[in-house]
């Protein structure tokens, strides 16, 4: 019997573990893949207050070590369902665990474009991590799809290596920072392809090009690229919690800044819940809020 079971060992989940443990609670963290969550893909974090510069891996490892040193139990198991009752239960592919409170901190994952053969071509030209894979495309033409900060950062990063970078965006304005758009415009090897969507991946085992469709004219054109970097945002993975937990139409857990879900004693922290800002700091903050709420609930 645990006091708190936390689902997800990313920034929100591990922050919640630290707060729960320091309040004297018995905490289990369940994680399906690896600790750290999305931040491990970030080479350098420069916006976390109090830390000038740290790699995502080092940040995540620090959090993990802090939580485990305090006594967090971490099990690498995939959660398949939760149940409410006198005791709450969390079922995984391995076992069922009982607890008094649950914190859902499942984060979000990269959203795929949904193109034919997209998953198959990851490793053959399709990538969701420019900083991981960009170096393999030195002096080769690539495309980035997206209009947020990640897409702009990716395009800038790639423009330092690649012969050509097409930045494809479905609108004619970017959600990302103006400063970055200006920097990109100044790059000779960057070409903006606006009001356009990627509609097909060309090539057999390797990407040899992409088909892009203009949203206004419907005109299709082929871009000869060796790589497509997809940066169109994230999506949550909360389906196993429905119907007990209320989700919004996009699949995020409906919860406010107090991290409370529609079920008493079950909380949602970090990127998996409905919110407008999804940052490292807000994930950590949610972890603290949810853990302290769970502690108050347990009594």
């Amino acid at each position, binding site marked *: 019997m645990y006091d708190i079971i936390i689902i997800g060992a990313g920034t929100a989940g591990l922050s919640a573990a630290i707060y729960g443990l320091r309040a004297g609670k018995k905490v289990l963290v369940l994680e*399906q*893949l*690896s*600790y*750290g969550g999305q*931040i*491990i*893909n*970030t*080479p350098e974090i420069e916006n976390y207050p109090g830390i000038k510069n740290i*790699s*995502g*891996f080092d940040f*995540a490892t620090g959090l993990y070590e802090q939580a485990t040193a305090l006594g967090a139990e971490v099990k*690498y198991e995939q959660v398949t369902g939760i149940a409410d009752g006198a005791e709450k239960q969390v079922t995984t592919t391995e076992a069922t665990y009982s607890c008094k409170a649950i914190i859902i901190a499942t984060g979000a994952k990269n959203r795929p474009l949904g193109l034919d053969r997209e998953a198959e071509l*990851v*490793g*053959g*030209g399709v*990538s969701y*991590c420019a*900083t*991981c*894979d960009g*170096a*393999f*495309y030195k002096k080769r033409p690539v495309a980035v799809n997206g209009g947020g900060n990640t897409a702009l950062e990716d395009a800038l990063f790639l423009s330092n290596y690649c012969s050509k970078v097409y930045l494809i965006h479905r609108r004619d304005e970017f959600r990302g920072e103006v400063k970055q758009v200006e920097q990109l415009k100044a790059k000779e090897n960057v070409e903006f392809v606006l009001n356009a969507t990627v509609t097909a991946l060309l090539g057999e085992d*390797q990407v040899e090009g992409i088909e892009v469709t203009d949203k206004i004219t419907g005109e299709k054109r082929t871009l000869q690229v060796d*790589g497509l970097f997809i940066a169109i945002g994230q999506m949550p993975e909360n389906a196993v919690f429905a119907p007990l937990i209320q989700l919004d139409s996009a699949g995020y857990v409906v919860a406010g800044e107090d991290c409370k879900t529609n079920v008493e004693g079950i909380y949602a922290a970090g990127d998996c819940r409905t919110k407008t800002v999804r940052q490292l700091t807000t994930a950590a903050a949610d972890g603290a809020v949810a853990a302290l709420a769970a502690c108050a609930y347990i009594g």
Partner: protein
Amino acid sequence: MAVITLTSENFEKEVLQSAEPVLVDFWASWCGPCRMLSPIVDQVAEESTGGFKVGKVNVDDEGDLAEKYGIMNIPCLIVFKNGEVANKSVGMIAKPKVEELVKSVL
């Protein structure tokens, strides 16, 4: 079982001419997911009771090997059997999946 550091010098002997299948981890120090996967690969090697070998290729040091095997995303795990690519996986995966990747070709 010890994890072999693979280079262009020893790749032929340790991997391509190996009598047993070899699980090869292509990685780089600046790649976060690679650093997450690396200890899992170590664990799989440690817990192995034999039947396969485990090696790692640092793609920064061994660019030729990365290019030869068409590495475009890391971390990338490739299982070589009889000198040929028998199985491949891209990205961070959980330990059971790593084990399955090797075991499915044994």
